[in-house]
C-alpha cells in the first residue's frame, strides 16, 4: 500500500531546481533514500512533509494531492525526525513534546518518554542539558505524540557515536510506524528498509529491494558507494572512477565519474526495469556483470 507518492516532482530553492522529475512511492516495510551530500535527499523529505511546494509535479497523499488534502489529518499521519536543532533550545523538552497535544492529553508526555526509553524526569530539562542520544529520543517522542503512521527520518543518527547510534536504530526498528529513512550509511538502510532508492544529483538512479540493490548494484554509482564502505578488518576501500567531477549538466549526470562511461551516456538514460529494479543507466547490464 502506498501512503505517499511523489509523481514527477521537481523541487528547488529560489527557482533553481535541485531535484529533477523524481517519482517515488513510500511503500510498506521501510523506504531508504541514499545519496551523497547535496544530492537532494533532505529537499525531497521536506516536500513529502509539505514544507516545500513542488515546482512541478505532485505529492499524492492517498488519492488526493497534498495541496488539496485535509492538512490536519495529514499532519497527524506524517511526522519528521530530523537531526539538526530539532528541539527549541529554550524550551523544556516536556513542553516541546506537549506542543502538539491537546491540553487534556499533557499527561501523555510521561508515557511517550517511557516509550522511547527515557526517564520521565528529563521532561523538565532543556535540550542542552541532554546528551545527543537523549535528544534524539525526545525528538522521536515528539513525533510519536500525534500518533503518526509514517515517520520521515533525515539522517537521524549520523551525528551520534556508533554505540549510541545502534541503540537509536533499535528503537526505530521497534516502532510500528512506516518510515522513510534518509542516510548515507548503507548499513543502516540494510537494517531498516525493505526498499531503497539511490539519489544522484537530484535524480533517482536506482531503486529496488534493499538486499538485491546492495548485493548486486545495477548502477555504477551504487556500486561505487557500496565498495567505498570500509569493512572491519577488510581491505582498504577502493575508489572507483573519479570522485571529484561535478555532476554533468547534460546527459547522464554520473558520466564524468563513471569508469564505464561511453559516448552513449551523453543521452540522458531513462529509468528502466533491470532484473526487478528500476535503473537509469545505459550500461546497467554491464554493471551487473561486474558484480
Amino acid at each position, binding site marked *: 500500500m502506498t501512503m505517499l507518492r511523489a509523481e514527477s516532482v521537481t523541487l528547488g530553492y529560489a527557482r533553481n531546481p535541485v531535484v529533477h522529475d523524481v517519482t517515488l512511492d513510500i511503500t510498506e516495510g521501510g523506504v531508504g533514500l541514499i545519496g*551523497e*551530500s547535496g544530492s537532494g535527499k533532505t529537499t525531497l523529505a521536506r516536500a513529502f512533509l509539505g514544507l516545500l511546494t513542488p515546482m512541478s509535479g505532485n505529492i499524492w497523499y492517498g488519492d488526493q494531492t497534498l495541496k488539496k488534502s485535509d492538512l490536519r489529518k495529514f499532519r497527524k499521519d506524517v511526522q519528521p525526525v530530523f537531526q539538526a536543532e530539532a528541539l527549541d533550545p529554550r524550551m523544556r523538552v516536556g513542553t516541546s513534546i506537549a506542543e502538539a497535544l491537546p491540553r487534556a492529553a499533557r499527561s501523555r508526555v510521561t508515557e511517550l518518554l517511557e516509550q522511547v526509553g527515557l526517564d520521565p524526569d528529563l521532561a523538565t530539562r532543556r535540550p542542552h542539558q541532554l546528551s*545527543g542520544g537523549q535528544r534524539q529520543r525526545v525528538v522521536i517522542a515528539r513525533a510519536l505524540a500525534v500518533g503518526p503512521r509514517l515517520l520521515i527520518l533525515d539522517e537521524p543518527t549520523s551525528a551520534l*557515536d*556508533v*554505540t549510541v*547510534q*545502534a541503540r537509536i536504530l533499535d528503537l526505530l526498528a521497534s516502532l510500528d510506524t512506516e518510515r522513510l529513512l534518509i542516510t*548515507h*550509511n548503507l*548499513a*543502516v538502510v*540494510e*537494517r531498516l528498509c525493505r526498499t531503497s532508492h539511490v539519489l544522484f544529483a537530484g535524480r533517482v538512479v536506482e531503486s529496488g529491494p534493499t538486499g538485491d540493490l546492495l548485493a548486486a548494484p545495477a548502477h555504477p554509482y551504487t556500486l*561505487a*558507494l557500496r*565498495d*567505498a*564502505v*570500509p*569493512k*572491519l*578488518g*577488510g*581491505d*582498504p*576501500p*577502493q*575508489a*572507483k572512477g573519479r*570522485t*571529484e567531477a561535478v555532476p554533468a549538466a547534460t546527459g547522464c549526470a554520473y558520466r564524468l565519474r563513471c569508469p564505464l562511461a561511453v559516448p552513449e551516456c551523453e543521452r540522458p538514460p531513462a529509468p528502466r526495469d533491470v532484473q526487478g529494479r528500476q535503473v537509469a543507466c545505459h550500461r546497467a547490464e554491464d554493471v551487473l556483470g561486474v558484480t
Partner: protein
Amino acid sequence: MIEVRDLQVRYGGRLVADVPVLDVGAGECVAIVGESGSGKSTTLLALLGLTENAEISGQIGVCGVDVLTASPRALREIRGARAALVMQSPQAALGPATRLGVLMRRALKLHGRDASGANMAKAVEEVLLDREILRRYPHEISGGQAQRFAIALAIALGAEVILADEPTSALDVTVQAEVVGVLRRLREERGLALLLVSHDLALVSTIADRVLVMKDGAVVESGPAAGVLAEPSHPYTRELLEALP
C-alpha cells in the same frame, strides 16, 4: 618519529587526555579511536604544541624535538616541515582568501624549501590532483581535493610524519576512499609515518598497524590493530565493535 610518555592535558584543571605511551615509528600507521569528546583531537594537537590555554605535562618527542621544552622558534621549524597536520573540515582548514598555490609557496619559502612551480606541481600531482588547482581558491575545490591538497603540502615540505584528525569524516564514502587510498600509497612509497584520529573503527581497521582506544580522556586499550579488533579486552571496545553493522 613520535614518542609520547605520560602525557596529560588539562583544560582549566579538567583532565581531558591522559596518554601513558604513544609511539609512532617511521612508515608506521597508528590510529586513535574513541567517541566524541574522548580527547582524541586534544592529544593530537598537544603533539604539535597547538593547544590553546591547556596545561600539559609529560614528555612529547616529535622528530627528535622535545615539544614541551622547545623554543617557539624550534617548534615552528618542525611544524609543517617535519610533522604535518591534516584536519577534519576540508575547506575551513584553508584560508578563504589565499590561492592554494600561494599558501604552498609561502609555506615552502618559510621552511627554505624549493618553491619553484615545478616542485609544487610535482607535489600536487603526487596526490592525483591537477596542477591547475594551485590557481584556485579553497571554495573552488571539493572536500576531497582539499584534503588531498593538505597532504600535498606535507609532501612538498618533505614532512616525515602526518598527523591526521578525522581527515575523512566530513567526506562522502566514495571520496573518503580516495583520500585513504592516497595516504596508504604515500606510506608505502615514501615511508611516511601516520598518526590517524578517527571514530570509524571499520576504516581504522583497514589501514592502521596499531590502535589506541580512548574513552573520557583515558586510553582504555591499545595494541596491534588486528589483535585489538579481533579480541577486544576492554568492554568499551567490545561495545564499539558490536555497534558496527
